[in-house]
């Protein structure tokens, strides 16, 4: 941990680095999925600036600021990372890279991976060279993620994988998938699963996009037909993949939860709504009262995410409380988009009109409280594991 003085120094240093290295075009504050570089073998940069920004940030370790430098990170402390993010926000910089490798697989590899796996995969993730997707859910399993039917037969030097995954976001664009596979059919539900890394170019892997009520979606179905997965592509122990999955779910929940809050310095929902509606301020008293309540909740939820990150840093960990963050954040985000739709009125009801994307954004939020564990599952986790309420 830096002392107060050296944090001030760090801020000056990072500010100056950003000034020199973040291309002007990347300072437009756009943080939606379509504006950001996701990396991967087939990535087509939208501009030279986007390529340059990724290369410079990766070289400085700032695509994964908290990771150790040996794996391509900048080795920042939590306090330094906060400063980095504040300075990024100050100049409205886009993140240089976004990926499930950074937000999900990376933390799991850092925790469960072999030295060889860490040395091989992490730097590639940090440089945006491979793009990952996740293979958890299966058709018909819904919230019961441990209900894994995809089979991995032990064939000596490899597993032979057959089955199907659903809700694999961006599988059609990913290079690799991390997937839960049943490797022991006789063991109890949670004890026979392994966590495998599979190259999407391996023979027998196919994928197909899913159309959602919000229109085209990043979600896919992915099929495995006699796919051969070498034995060194397992994370954690054989048949203990559920431990890895649980660990990783925690990170996913934290990521989804923050969708609903924005930064505390961000713009107020009420102002956003009024502007979208083309009004000087919200005219409808009912809507205004709801917007104020949502604003209160958003500010307090943002503070809660920060507080839990600080606790995690202090070594207390977030653990099961990630279920709370996920529940609160996603329900808030749904409310927020309901209010935005109300404020925009009929403007937001035309697919092809100037505000047509509002409706797609709104519908998309309905998945927030389903993906990565439903709100109901989150509440059960809180009730059972945190509050210690008894099972039925």
């Amino acid at each position: 941990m830096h002392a107060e003085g050296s944090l001030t120094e760090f801020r000056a240093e990072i500010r100056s680095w950003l000034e020199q290295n973040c291309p002007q075009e990347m300072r437009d504050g756009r943080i939606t999925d379509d504006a950001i570089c996701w990396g991967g073998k087939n990535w087509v940069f939208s501009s030279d600036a986007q390529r340059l920004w990724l290369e410079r940030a990766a070289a400085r370790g700032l695509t994964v600021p908290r990771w150790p430098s040996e794996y391509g990170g900048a080795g920042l402390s939590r306090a330094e990372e906060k400063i980095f993010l504040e300075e990024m926000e100050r100049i409205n910089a886009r993140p240089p890279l976004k990926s499930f490798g950074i937000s999900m697989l990376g933390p799991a590899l850092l925790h469960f991976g072999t030295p060889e796996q860490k040395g091989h995969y992490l730097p590639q993730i940090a440089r945006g060279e491979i793009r990952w997707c996740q293979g958890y859910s299966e058709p018909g399993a819904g919230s019961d993620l441990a209900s894994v039917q995809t089979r991995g037969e032990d064939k000596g030097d490899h597993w032979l994988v057959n089955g199907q995954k659903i809700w694999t976001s961006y599988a059609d664009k990913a290079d690799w998938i991390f997937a839960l596979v049943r490797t022991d059919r006789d063991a109890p539900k949670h004890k026979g699963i392994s966590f495998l890394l599979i190259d999407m170019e391996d023979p027998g892997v196919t994928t197909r996009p899913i159309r959602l009520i919000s229109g085209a979606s990043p979600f896919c179905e992915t099929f495995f037909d006699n796919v051969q997965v070498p034995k060194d592509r397992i994370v954690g122990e054989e048949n203990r993949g559920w431990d890895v999955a649980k660990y990783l779910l925690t990170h996913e929940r934290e990521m989804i939860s923050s969708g609903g809050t924005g930064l505390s310095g961000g713009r107020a929902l009420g102002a956003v709504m009024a502007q979208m509606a083309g009004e000087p301020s919200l005219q409808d008293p009912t809507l205004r009262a709801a917007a104020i309540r949502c604003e209160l909740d958003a500010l307090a939820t943002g503070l809660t995410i920060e507080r839990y990150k600080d606790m995690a840093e202090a070594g207390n960990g977030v653990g099961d409380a990630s279920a709370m963050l996920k529940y609160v954040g996603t329900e808030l985000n749904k409310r927020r988009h309901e209010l935005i739709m109300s404020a925009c009125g009929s403007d937001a009801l035309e697919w092809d009109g100037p505000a047509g994307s509002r409706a797609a954004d709104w519908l998309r939020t309905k998945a927030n409280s389903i993906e990565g564990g439903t709100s109901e599952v989150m509440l059960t986790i809180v009730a059972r594991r945190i509050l210690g309420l008894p099972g039925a």
Partner: protein
Amino acid sequence: MLADSARGFLDDAAPVSALRHLRDAGRTHDPDLWQRICGMGWAGVLIPEDAGGSDMGHAAAGMLAHEMGRTLVNSPFLSSAVIAATALRQVADARAMDAMAAIAAGRTTYALAIDETHKFAPEATAMTAGRSGNGFRLSGTKRFVIDGGFADRILVLARAAEGLTLFDLPADRAGMDRTALNLIDGRDAARITFGNVEATGDDVLGQVGDAMAVLKPALEAGQAALAAEMSGLAAGAFDMTVGYLKERKQFGRPIGSFQALQHRAAHLWCEIEVTASAVLNAGRVLDGNPGEAALAVSLAKARATSTAQLAVMEGVQMHGGIGMTDEYDMGFYMKRARVGAEWLGDYGYHAEQVAALRGI
């Protein structure tokens, strides 16, 4: 009885899949379906028998709208058979009787052009109807004209020197520029720009400067029927959800056996029942005491809006991932609920009406 026969007809002629086919074909209106509906006599439900209608009243119209809401029927029933018919009926001169006869027979469809901003606010109408010789020239833009992309005639609210005035114009009148737009629920809505459109005194429905005498009953009839449609929508989404709760298994049991979902489903059913009372009451008051219907109508529309939104939100959430897929019908209910929420005054608008009438 009416409800049962309506449901039987619609299950056959216009299930939710019909809306899907229409949308997938890139269309927002199905003239054949509307002819079949007219064949059932529904277009004349509010039209006098002298004009070929069945004159069954607003309670019956609400019942039909409720059933159409259940399967998300895409038709100009509200625009033509409820709103336009009620407006014309306030005048009921020879021309209006002919127009009603044309609606009842399915020869003419109408749309109401009233909104000018993103919200319903008829009193704030800015579109002008300036005097020009013996007639008028209409200038301005109307938005969110439901069924306006294909309707044969348009009821247009404009501001004349004497006050708000309602015009009944053919949709092909020179100077009217229509842009049809796809709404998120697959329905048709138009933006219509009026560039000095000429209108005569004959085009005025009711009295110049006194649009509300004609429009207020028509709006109330439309709002009540829309509330009924939304209560039907809520019931349809709810039935689908309860069916899913019974059939879908997770963690080794039907998800409908989980108490938390049971209580939420039960709460939702209570909301639907309470809203049904408000909707039925609106129809009854419009039939029995039409001059005093404002409170009943706004109560019904406000409650129906809230209830339908709760029903579709719970519907999608309880269906889990499958509810989010376009293959599944729940998304259609969610989108229609949102459009219904906005049309003819949203929750906040009607809540303020109730507040004003109840002195809050």
